[in-house]
């Protein structure tokens, strides 16, 4: 069985079977990363290019390690070193890379829709590693994997996503993916950081953190972006923190078995307090570990089981 899509552009393109298959595959790959020799020959001879037009440590490294653990050759190209700095446009850059016959292109770009644009010109599969404020599907998948491995089943779980929803591709991907898996999503944040008409996606919207977290199974805290302060979305980080920082005091009102996830990087003490971040509910580092497994699964499934070398 293979995925219903040739590219991973967004959670919106993945159906329930796709997501289940990706999570199951990732689950089976987790073990590889615990071996003393963390490498299998599955994708030997395959070439993966990470084309990153935005700074990224976690995601780029995660894709790179995932490719290498499957024995693929992974090449990293960053925005500053690519020809786009010389004025070459995105499409031409990607076409030139494709001329060198990569098997997968992983793209991060600051414009929403950048990966979708490339699929019109590029034949090899594309994984969207974040496009503007649109989607970041592999992040949503690793979040689901993390939640599933602690809760067993995703169906019926309640989630509160807290923070800057407006500018967050992580939130958008998670809303879609979680709804596909039968979860109920609530978003929490100051109204300027909630995009218009979000309720029409079937999402509950709130600005009251304590109330919103009482009945949920999972709290997803998003990074608040400092640069938004000067854009009329935020009065100050201090005030944001007064109302939306997830502290031990607020957490005390949540269910005892609540899980806390955060896509990173964390602003300690602004959106989440240090003790909560490092406390027993937090799965922040599990997420990072699971990220590698998810990306291994995506590479494996996109290149097709038939196409890959025997283990």
């Amino acid at each position, binding site marked *: 069985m293979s995925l219903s899509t040739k590219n991973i552009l967004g959670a*919106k393109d993945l159906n329930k079977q796709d997501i289940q298959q990706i999570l199951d595959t990732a689950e089976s790959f987790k073990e590889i990363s615990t071996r003393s020799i963390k490498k299998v020959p599955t994708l030997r001879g395959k070439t993966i290019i990470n084309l990153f037009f935005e700074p990224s440590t976690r995601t780029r490294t995660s894709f790179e390690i995932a490719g290498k653990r499957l024995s693929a050759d992974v090449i990293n190209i960053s925005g500053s070193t690519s020809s786009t700095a010389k004025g070459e*446009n*995105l*499409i031409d850059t990607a076409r030139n890379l494709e001329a060198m016959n990569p098997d997968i292109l992983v793209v991060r*770009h600051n*414009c*929403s*829709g*950048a990966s*979708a*644009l490339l699929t019109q010109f590029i034949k090899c599969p594309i994984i969207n590693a974040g*496009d*503007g*404020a*649109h*989607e970041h599907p592999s992040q949503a998948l690793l979040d689901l994997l993390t939640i599933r491995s602690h809760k067993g089943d995703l169906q019926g779980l309640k989630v509160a996503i807290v923070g800057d929803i407006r500018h967050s*591709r992580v939130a*958008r991907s998670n809303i879609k993916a979680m709804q596909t898996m039968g979860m109920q999503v609530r978003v929490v944040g100051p109204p300027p950081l909630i*995009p*218009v*008409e*979000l309720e*029409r*996606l079937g999402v509950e919207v709130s600005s009251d953190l304590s109330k919103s977290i009482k009945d949920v199974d999972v709290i997803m805290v998003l990074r608040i972006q400092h640069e938004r302060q000067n854009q009329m979305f935020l009065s100050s980080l201090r005030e944001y923190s007064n109302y939306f920082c997830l502290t031990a005091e607020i957490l005390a009102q949540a269910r005892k078995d609540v899980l806390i996830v955060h896509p990173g990087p964390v602003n300690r003490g602004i959106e989440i307090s240090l003790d909560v971040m490092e406390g027993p509910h937090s799965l922040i580092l599990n997420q990072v570990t699971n990220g590698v497994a998810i990306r291994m699964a995506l590479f494996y499934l996109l290149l097709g089981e038939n196409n890959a070398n025997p283990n």
Partner: protein
Amino acid sequence: MPTLIKNGRVIDPANKLDGSFDILINDGRIEAVEPKGKISGSKLKGIAEIDAKGCVVSPGFCDMHVHFREPGHEYKETIETGSASASAGGFTTVAVMPNTSPVNDNRSVTELILSQARKTSAINILPIGAISKGLKGETLSDMGELKEAGCIGYSDDGRPVMDSELMRRALEYSRMFDLPCIQHSEMLDLTLGGCMNEGIISTELGLKGMPVEAEDIMVFRDISLLAKTGGRLHVAHISSGGAVDLVRQAKAKGLPVTCEVAPHHFTLTEEACREYDTNSKMSPPLRTHQDIELIKEGLRDGTIDIIATDHAPHDLADKQVEFSKACFGIVGLETALPLTLKLVDEKIITLEKAVDLLTHQPCRLFNLDKGDIGVGKIADIVIFDPQSKYCIEPEKFKSRSKNSPYKGWQVRGQILHTLVAGKTVYSVGNE
């Protein structure tokens, strides 16, 4: 050579004429309009004939809002290619917006445009001068000089006049020259970085939205200024249902305001942006289904005065990029008729009214002695088949640019002949 256009259905709203008439053209002017078969005798010897059986014969269309990009951006369009596009769309007169490079904010640029038009264009090109010098929104342009050089209105189109004081003075000063101020209504502080209508789709796509209030607020501001300033306000490419309502209320109070709508704003919604199709990116943006309904109501009750295309050619390099980086606008001249006829199909307006919105009304608004094919008038005429069906193929457009969201649409209404001053400047299949 004299020409007889016979057997057609003549729709000439300026003269309230709609029926089977034959039209005799001589020396570039209308010599006779008579009931079918009544033009006879010595007059018919050795003249050219056009059989318009089953077709509509009307004044040539007049588009008061196009961008021909010359001077400055000839790779997108020139006066020559724009005119070819216009005549293929049935237009015999167009008003070109001043956001060229250099900007049409002084006599020498106006004269250059008119001189290029004489050399390369078969249709009537009417320049619109800038409201502010350099379209910078800071100081008034020399409106008198612009009028003397041939401008027929003032606009900073592409950019709104944000400064209320400047807009007030522009409305006042333009009164001296009896020409309208055409406003692209958009509060830029509300649309900064925006690239589509703000709503559920922009939220899903993660694109910065342009809220409908940005349009409404400026329309409201300009209308508010009018009571004291006088002058004539023409609201360009109205796209918001709320703005239509504001214009309706202002008209009821007797204020001198008029407005236009572009065909894309009554045929497409924000849904068209869903796949990040940059040919669906325009300013003002495609709005919602509800806005379209309110625009149709405005067309039905006469709140909306004219149809204008906002023909905005952009080449592939400006459109085949990330959505947020793409230029705003689409070409419109060669799709205006079939899209307008959709309103007739939907029984929003009659065919006669559709012709009126494209001919007599724009000329009345801009005080042009055109859009009228009464005896003695210059013979600017279009002949179209309102029934013939075809598929829109942008690659076949005469325009230098092909940026149209209507590729593949099955439509009705084909231009067969376009005549300017009695001379055929376009014939279908004869290009």
